[in-house]
């Protein structure tokens, strides 16, 4: 069977248009018009080209070896230099004309070390109003090796929260050493040399058992009171009347 001429002609036209469309789509239109890869790689390139402002932890070491070694042995060993001195990539490239920030006033250190209840327990914190007011921190503490200039003699210097609680309790007049013995090492390395705590019911019984000398202390019969529990499982010794 022979196709009519008008059908062959229209088929040629259709084929031509289809070829042209495919040519335009796959050859003439640049890939950036339909593929995301091109503009994404351009974005990545733009991001990578951005300037670095923080030089990184090891960049300071070569010139400032003395400070670096001092810091590496102190409590601030985990801090990068740029935590306090600010971005210093410019200084690393041109040490003479670009000088990094050096905090010297009293505003800077309390950003980390002012008391805040949300800060983790054991993190050194001060009350800025009562801790040597108006004195810049660096007059007593070397920020590269920040040990207290003199280890505090009072327990309350570190255990302020407990001291405040005890002050309101019936145990207010008892010195901490009545119940705790702290070795000298506890002042230098508080967590590796923990002070002692009372271990037995008889320890509290020295004041609170029937027939003992102290007339002001409430008396209980040690043998029958509280069953097998230890005293501080029910009574908080720093605020004993708080949990009757």
């Amino acid at each position, binding site marked *: 069977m022979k196709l009519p001429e008008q059908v062959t002609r229209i088929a040629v036209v259709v084929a031509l248009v289809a070829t042209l469309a495919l040519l*335009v789509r796959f*050859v*003439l239109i*640049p*890939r*950036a018009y339909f*593929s*995301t*890869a*091109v*503009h*994404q*790689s*351009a*974005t*990545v*390139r733009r*991001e*990578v*080209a*951005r*300037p*670095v*402002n*923080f030089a*990184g*932890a090891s960049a300071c070491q070569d010139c400032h070896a003395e400070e670096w070694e001092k810091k590496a042995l102190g409590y*601030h060993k*985990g*801090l*990068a230099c*740029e*935590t306090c001195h*600010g*971005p210093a990539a410019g200084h690393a490239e041109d040490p003479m004309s670009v000088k990094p920030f050096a905090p010297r006033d009293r*505003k800077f250190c309390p*950003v*980390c070390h002012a008391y*805040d*209840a*949300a*800060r*983790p327990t054991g*993190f050194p914190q001060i009350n800025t109003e009562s801790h040597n007011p108006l004195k810049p921190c660096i007059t007593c503490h070397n920020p590269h090796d920040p040990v207290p200039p003199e280890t505090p003699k009072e327990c309350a210097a570190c255990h302020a929260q407990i001291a405040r609680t005890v002050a309101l309790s019936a145990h207010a007049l008892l010195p901490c050493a009545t119940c705790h013995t702290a070795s000298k090492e506890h002042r230098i390395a508080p967590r590796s040399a923990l002070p002692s705590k009372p271990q037995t019911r008889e320890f509290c019984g020295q004041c609170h058992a029937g027939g003992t000398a102290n007339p002001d202390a409430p008396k209980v019969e040690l043998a029958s009171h509280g069953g097998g529990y230890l005293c501080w499982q029910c009574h908080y010794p720093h605020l004993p009347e708080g949990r009757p």
Partner: protein
Amino acid sequence: MNKREFLKKGAIAFIPAAAVLQALMRQAEASVAGAAGATGSPTPGYEPRDHWYGMGIEVEKCIGCNRCAEACKAENDVPPEPFFFRTWVERYTVKQSGETEVECISVNPRGERKAQDEREVLRSFFVPKLCNHCAHAPCVQVCPVGATFTTADGVVLVDSTRCIGCRYCIQACPYGARFFNHRTNTADKCTFCYHRVVKGLLPACVEVCPTQARVFGDLRSKASRLVRFQRMNKINVLKPALNTEPKVYYAQLDGEVR
């Protein structure tokens, strides 16, 4: 000129004109994409496909000093107004009554924090936050022009030349990690300091954190600090029920944190 002649001449003129046009466009494309091609490495010797970045945050270690947010601003040229930030720190206060108060301390970093009556506080802690660089990022899904995307190494970036500033991604992010940069009139967000990371440096917030509450690493490397962090801690992510698969991993995360 009759119709037949016009079509003939037109066809003859079309092919070379189109070829020239196409060559010009190819050239422009090449200059945009650079020599390494569309999917190649951004810096020599760096293969994005070998990496998959994430961050670990140890909530217990955060002291709420806000140095991370400040360093981020210094590194990434974030607008100076206090309410623009790519990373920020929240203070959670759970009261005796059971209610939880959240305060973003990055808004007013040096000023007075909200006074707390300590007798009412049950527990209180800081939570640093940033873009979670989700493996299934809602912001990437919703972008109508494909301006935001995930790189081969798992970092969600914004193409500021393509972004039309419709703010749909800001609405879509369940973590509130995006903001509208009024300078560029585009959406802006944390890039994990991509320009530092590809050079082997740490992100600025991780670099300056004084207590190592933030850990950055490559999840594809067995020896990375982040993999060790995941091995040594009980890990949680924010809003796991949304199946966004965030890549910011929190240790010791309180159930109150949203």
